[in-house]
């Protein structure tokens, strides 16, 4: 069955019909639930919100939705690869490449990044003693742009085919000549739109952390999560424009027939350089915030301050700086010459030094502490050995001649999953279990949490450890099948089983969310974990203004200090008074809608849509310029014990 959509033929194969049906069923189910529980109004309120914790929670929700999609792609790939010359459903050849590309793109841009940005949104203002981000309106816009990009990339599967050239989308493979159809246009436009959102977020966090810290919170008194967010934002700021340019060139090549990246005219290496100038910092963009979360979690649950705080900060900055100096290690086999390869090998290896410092500092934070095995702490502890494995294989990859063997083999696939899941995803889970009671006022169930942790972690090792061996046995990456005589069947089967175990872990997590929302004890108080930093001085969930009175900070770990010296009392920096908070607005939603329309215009070559979309964005920006001062004034209730959090418990 085929139908035409703006001159593009769309084939309705069984997999697409199933996808369409499941989208339809989920849509109807959501609509019914919203109607049944009469939640349409509050949904609308959420859409309009510019408040940091609400935007953060929306980031987390959307990120998890994409996580499920990316995970489904992963399971499909693992089933296809379980046996040699397997033919699972339709997922061979081009379809497999679609799955593989969507999996990578989704997991990096629409899962790992938004989940981290979501946690930053939620926790940073609390941790630095601020009422909101510097630019709340911009923050909402960033979120909606990210969502528009994510939807574009994810909808491609049912509307003309997904991108096929891998998340790295190398030219000339990604050009019209070798990848006809709208698939790769979805990639360029989806990433462009969400990339703008990410860049704006970075500026937002930079200004917030620099200008909005509570009085007395000097840079060297900030918790490490804000620190890592600061460094990450700088990385985003300087890395994403390179991606913007790369995507722009790819878009022009594909849509207008220019010759930037083709190999016969133009230069196909431009793409690789620009992509990796962005792409390698991106790895650190993903892992540094997780480092920050681990620092805070490990410190809290060891009941000790972070060991070597200043060297932690310095190594964060070093990693950030070196992150820009190593991109050619993704291109060792391109043939740039031994000098260039040697320089980048050394710079790559040198990143191991600050990372090692951080690992040992974490270990010595634990040493001499009182380690409490909460779920958040388990994820942080599981991270250390896992990430070290990923780190040492990273150093092995930096040795150029050896990399000629490892490069683009399953060894690399194993390596970066150890880093990204072992670092980023475990960090995200740690952060979610850690800040959940602050966000929602109840804890996630610890027993289910531990089940989640163990199935996920063990499943993870079973999935990805064998991949190193597959690589050494000669399995290249991004293949949809292999031959029986390759001797890869057993390992691949083990890996597939592990993948399903991870999926089971995710199901336990989802069940935990539901179960805890129904059965968990309400009113956990301000400080459920006996914490150390400012977020634990305010009610759970905090009022919209977070702090009725902004606290005055006198040292690192202010709450712990207060518990030690002043019986938990923290001095306030201002008298109780009216608080100005930003208004909610629907403009960011409209703006991302307009950009989505424009993107569809570009993908399907419909000029009217392009013009309508871009004009819409321009008009909304102008409208915003004339309505950028409104605010609502909130009067916090009178507070007897004068503690800074406002309402008495």
């Amino acid at each position: 069955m085929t139908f035409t959509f703006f001159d593009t033929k769309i084939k309705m194969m069984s997999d697409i019909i199933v996808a369409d049906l499941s989208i339809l069923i989920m849509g109807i189910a959501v609509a019914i639930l919203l109607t049944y529980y009469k939640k349409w109004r509050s949904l609308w309120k959420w859409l309009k919100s510019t408040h940091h914790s609400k935007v953060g929670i929306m980031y987390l929700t959307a990120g998890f939705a994409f996580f499920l999609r990316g995970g489904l792609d992963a399971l499909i790939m693992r089933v296809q690869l379980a046996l040699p010359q397997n033919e699972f459903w339709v997922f061979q050849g081009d379809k497999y490449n679609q799955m593989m590309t969507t999996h990578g793109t989704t997991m990096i841009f629409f899962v790992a990044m938004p989940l981290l940005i979501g946690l930053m949104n939620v926790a940073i203002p609390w941790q630095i003693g601020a009422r909101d981000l510097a630019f709340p309106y911009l923050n909402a816009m960033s979120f909606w742009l990210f969502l528009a990009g994510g939807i574009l990339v994810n909808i491609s599967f049912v509307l003309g085919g997904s991108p096929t050239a891998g998340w790295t989308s190398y030219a000339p493979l990604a050009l019209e000549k070798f990848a006809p159809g709208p698939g790769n246009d979805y990639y360029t436009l989806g990433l462009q739109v969400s990339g703008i959102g990410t860049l704006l977020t970075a500026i937002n966090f930079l200004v917030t952390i620099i200008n909005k810290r509570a009085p007395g919170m000097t840079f060297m008194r900030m918790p490490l999560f804000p620190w890592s967010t600061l460094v990450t934002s700088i990385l985003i700021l300087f890395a994403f424009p390179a991606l913007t340019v790369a995507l722009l060139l790819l878009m022009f090549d594909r849509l207008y027939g220019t010759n930037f990246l083709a190999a016969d005219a133009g230069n196909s290496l431009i793409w690789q350089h620009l992509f990796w100038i962005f792409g390698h910092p991106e790895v650190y963009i993903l892992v540094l915030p997780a480092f920050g979360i681990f620092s805070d979690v490990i410190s809290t649950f060891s009941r000790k301050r972070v060991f070597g705080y200043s060297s932690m900060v310095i190594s964060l900055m070093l990693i950030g700086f070196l992150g820009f100096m190593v991109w050619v290690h993704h291109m060792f086999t391109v043939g740039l010459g031994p000098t260039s390869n040697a320089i980048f090998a050394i710079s790559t290896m040198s990143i191991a030094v600050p990372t090692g410092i951080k690992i040992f500092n974490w270990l010595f934070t634990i040493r001499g502490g009182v380690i409490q095995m909460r779920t958040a702490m388990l994820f942080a502890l599981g991270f250390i050995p896992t990430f070290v494995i990923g780190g040492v294989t990273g150093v092995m990859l930096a040795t150029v001649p050896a990399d000629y063997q490892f490069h683009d083999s399953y060894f690399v696939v194993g390596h970066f999953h150890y880093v990204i899941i072992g670092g980023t995803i475990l960090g995200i889970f740690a952060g979610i279990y850690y800040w959940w009671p602050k966000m929602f006022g109840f804890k996630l169930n610890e027993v289910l949490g531990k089940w989640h942790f163990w199935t996920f972690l063990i499943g993870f090792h079973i999935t990805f450890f064998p991949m190193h061996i597959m690589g050494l046995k000669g399995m290249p990456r991004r293949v949809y099948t292999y031959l029986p005589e390759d001797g890869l069947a057993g390992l691949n089967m083990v890996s597939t089983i592990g993948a399903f175990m991870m999926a089971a872990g995710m199901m336990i997590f989802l069940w935990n969310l539901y179960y805890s929302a129904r059965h968990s004890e309400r009113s956990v108080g301000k400080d459920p974990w006996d914490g150390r930093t400012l977020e634990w001085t305010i009610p759970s969930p905090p009022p919209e203004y977070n702090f009725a009175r902004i606290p005055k900070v006198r040292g690192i770990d202010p709450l712990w200090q207060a518990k030690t010296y002043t019986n938990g009392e923290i001095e306030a920096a201002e008298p109780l008074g009216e608080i100005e908070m930003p208004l909610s607005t629907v403009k960011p939603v409209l703006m991302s809608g307009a950009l989505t329309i424009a993107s569809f215009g570009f993908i399907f070559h419909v000029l009217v849509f392009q013009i309508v979309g871009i004009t819409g964005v321009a008009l909304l920006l102008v409208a915003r310029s004339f309505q950028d001062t409104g605010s609502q004034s909130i009067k916090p209730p009178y507070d007897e014990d004068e503690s800074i959090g406002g309402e008495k418990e």
Partner: protein
Amino acid sequence: MGFAAMLFMSGIAFYLVMNKRVISEWTAVVLIGFAIVQVMLQLFFFMDIQTERKGFKWISLSGGLLVAILAIVYLTR
């Protein structure tokens, strides 16, 4: 005053190229040197870079410049 200096420098650069007064290897260096001086004039006279939070302003500029130069060097190799 900064403005006059900038016009002057662009004028000289233009004059040099039009009349081919410089030997070729030095052309690029001299011209880019002129451009950099002009940028400095802009930064200090017009953009008030030395006012509050100047550290972060410099970080923003120099960081961007560093990545930009890396990109240019490697792309044009």
